[in-house]
């Protein structure tokens, strides 16, 4: 399995509030993928995303260390994410005078030939199979929901004044609702986890044509970031690509 990741702060922002992680198993094979785009201010914008990545990574790892692990992948995921939600929420309560912070989360967990996706917010997961690209996750954002309802089209959503407003965030409230998706892993599948810094700038057709090039994933991701920056680079850009 080939994999690569990239995170770039863009050309406008001074700080990168996106975080990511790839967890490898004992054999050095990737087991889980996480991207998170934080929100919550100059001092705190990166806290929630960083905490989310760390807490969820730890949660997943310690589960697989346990003997007799019987829970479903989804349950493992859910527990890890709920713990992260609680950790972030309590942190803000204690240390930030109740100023809420939160983060998007798009994560994938490989287990027994299936990839389970957990998703909150407006980062995205794309499945590329048979030269087709499919956005599996629904954007939990003001514009995303209007697109789903058929009120806006994708291009209108990109310039809408509320395009930066998400309707769900990890760690923002006491409880969080998580969307789960699951796909069977086939050889030659390509998976893309990314934050909106990428998808605000590149269309899904562009993502597809770049990802199916005969090039290594590292250079493909680098090209994608360069293109997003060329088109303004106003936001942080983070992506993980995996090729089975």
């Amino acid at each position: 399995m080939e994999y690569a990741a990239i995170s770039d702060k863009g050309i406008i922002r001074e700080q990168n509030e996106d975080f990511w992680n790839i967890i490898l198993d004992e054999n050095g094979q990737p087991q889980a993928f996480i991207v998170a785009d934080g929100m919550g201010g100059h001092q705190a914008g990166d806290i929630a995303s960083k905490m989310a990545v760390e807490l969820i990574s730890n949660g997943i790892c310690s589960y697989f260390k346990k003997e007799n692990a019987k829970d479903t992948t989804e349950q493992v995921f859910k527990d890890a994410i709920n713990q992260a939600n609680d950790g972030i929420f309590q942190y803000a309560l204690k240390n930030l005078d109740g100023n809420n912070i939160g983060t998007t989360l798009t994560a994938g967990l490989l287990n027994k030939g299936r990839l389970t996706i957990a998703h909150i917010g407006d980062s995205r997961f794309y499945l590329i199979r048979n030269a087709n690209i499919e956005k599996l996750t629904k954007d939990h954002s003001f514009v995303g929901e209007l697109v789903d309802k058929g009120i806006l089209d994708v291009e209108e959503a990109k310039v809408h004044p509320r395009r930066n407003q998400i309707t769900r965030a990890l760690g923002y409230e006491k409880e969080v609702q998580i969307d789960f998706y699951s796909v069977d892993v086939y050889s030659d599948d390509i998976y893309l986890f990314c934050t909106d810094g990428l998808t605000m700038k590149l269309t899904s057709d562009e993502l597809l044509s770049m990802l199916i090039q005969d090039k290594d994933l590292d250079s493909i991701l680098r090209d994608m970031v360069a293109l997003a920056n060329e088109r303004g680079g106003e936001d942080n850009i983070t992506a993980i690509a995996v090729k089975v």
Partner: protein
Amino acid sequence: MTGKVLNNRYELVELAGSGGMADVYKARCRVLKRWVAVKILKDEFVNDEEFLERFEREAYAAGSLNHPNIVSIYDVGREDNIHYIVMEYVDGITLKDYIRRNGAIPWEEAAEIAISILSALHKAHRHNIVHRDIKPQNILMTSDNVPKVADFGIARATSTSTITMKVDTVGSVHYSSPEQARGGYTDAQSDIYSVGVTLYEMLTGRVPFDADTPVSVALKHIEEEAPIPSDYVADIPKAMDDIVLRAMKKAKTERYDSALQMIADLDRAKMGKEMSNGSVNDPFATKVIGDLEDETLAGKSSRNKNKRKNDKRKAKKSDKPKSKKKGFLIATVYILLIGVIVGGIWFAYDKIVKDLIGAISAPKTEPVEVISYIGKHIDEAIEDLKEKNLPYLEPVYEYHDTVEKDIVISQKPTAGISIMPGSVAITKVELIVSNGPQMVTIPEDMKFADYLEVELYLRDDLRLKPKEVAEYSDEVAEGRVIRTQPAMGSDVSVGSEVIIYRSLGPKLMDVVVPDLSNDTMDEAKHKLLSENLSIGKIFPEDREGYKGRIIDQEPKAGTTVKELTAVNLYFGDEQSPTGGDGGVPGINQSVRVTRSIYLPVQGNFGNKVEVEAYYTTGDTTEEIFLTRIELERTKFPYDVLVPVTPGAKTTLIVYMDGQFQYTEEVFSER
């Protein structure tokens, strides 16, 4: 932030409120000795230059609006990373709180408040400023119940931000027009829609569309019809229902064309005149509005032309049935009165006053047009006002950087507006007069002082215009002040330019960087010092003694640089340990592998064990700190995440109670 003084002028006294984008403080202005409200932009926005530029530009534009129902903007500024707007301090509550406290507001009062908001919007729209975020939370009610609209133009600035944020659940979306929900083109009529919603809430105590999520609320604005206000509160007259529903039409073209048009309908409703069949086709309403719009758009220059047109129209009007004309007169007088009460919009009607006032029995006096006094001497202005029997307030004197003493700087009402003279006067002329420039002294003791401090002091404390000129100086160190022009100790007027000469230090000669390759540390040092260059950073860092030979240097040999430039040296066995997960992760960093730390069976440990873990990466032997934790015996095996760089060997090193225990290879290659 409380207690802080911004630009040595605005002393933040207490936090008065907090919104999605800014915090608002009650503050004291030390210069004008008055209360002000200081709106400070939240941290998350201060790194976005495009946003800041727009924020300031919109604030300046809104600052040009002077109206009794608009919260005045006094100043826009920044200090370090604090960006702020200084506004009129309003001692009162928001209209939202007012509705919360009182529930549904009697419809007559609601109409009055709506008229005030609309008159503020009329002024703004005339200046091509659209508010875009009219809602009761943005309307302040003074202690005398005068509504004041705040935050003009700010909504537009926010639309450029890419900062991810949680959608607001209680705010603007309840008041946004369908076109705003769609992200489409917004204009003055989007504000009219929001006024319609605000009026709806005043009348009924509830918003027309409510739902669990902001998206569902937005959808309702796009798709659903609101229940009629009088369904909730029975004594709301049909005329008010009609006004609200027309303002809230989904299609812009079906709404009121302008704020003035809606004011006129509200006035009629207050007089108890129901709108017959939708005021769009009401000959009366359209007629009046047509006249007003002409006047409003025509401006001063075409005033005479308009007068002729009006004369013609007057002739036409007399052909119409008498009853209609009478209604017209009463309405006009009523509009006039309302206009005077809300202030600021009345000038739009003054042409009608001129045409019709004679027809009403009461005052015989004609209104008099106010001329421009700006640039005139105050004595001359007063003489003219006396001659015309126009009432005026005691002139207010203010320091002015460029206008000479005793010359009028500004006036209210502006030229071209007509007001009533003598005993029937309602409005008084206000004149602001220059007191000449304020004088300050450039301090004597600024030579050798830090340039930036001096610049800030001259700019912010003395309010001068500092200009920087750089010079070489053998006497004054780099970055410090050599002298000023005018000289230190001179008296100068506030706002005048002062040149500060900043030292560049002694003039440095150009030298060529020598070739240091294969040199030892001592040889390199000797070569650099003899060229008057300095030694910069030495790589790899943190090693004791540099025994090897130099393989690279920065700047390269042969480069021309200034004397004293630092040259970085790179020694032979250079290594590049990869950083962990700190900073911005680059490609292929930050992949982590879990490893369990075991308690060695043969060890002799107590109930609690202090564990320290380090790792090495690549071929280096440098141990990078990973974690330190005190663990009970039962907590073993304990999991740690080890950062690995694909392609590089990573080894975990474990210490317990300060003693080395074991190493474990974590990762060899991908």
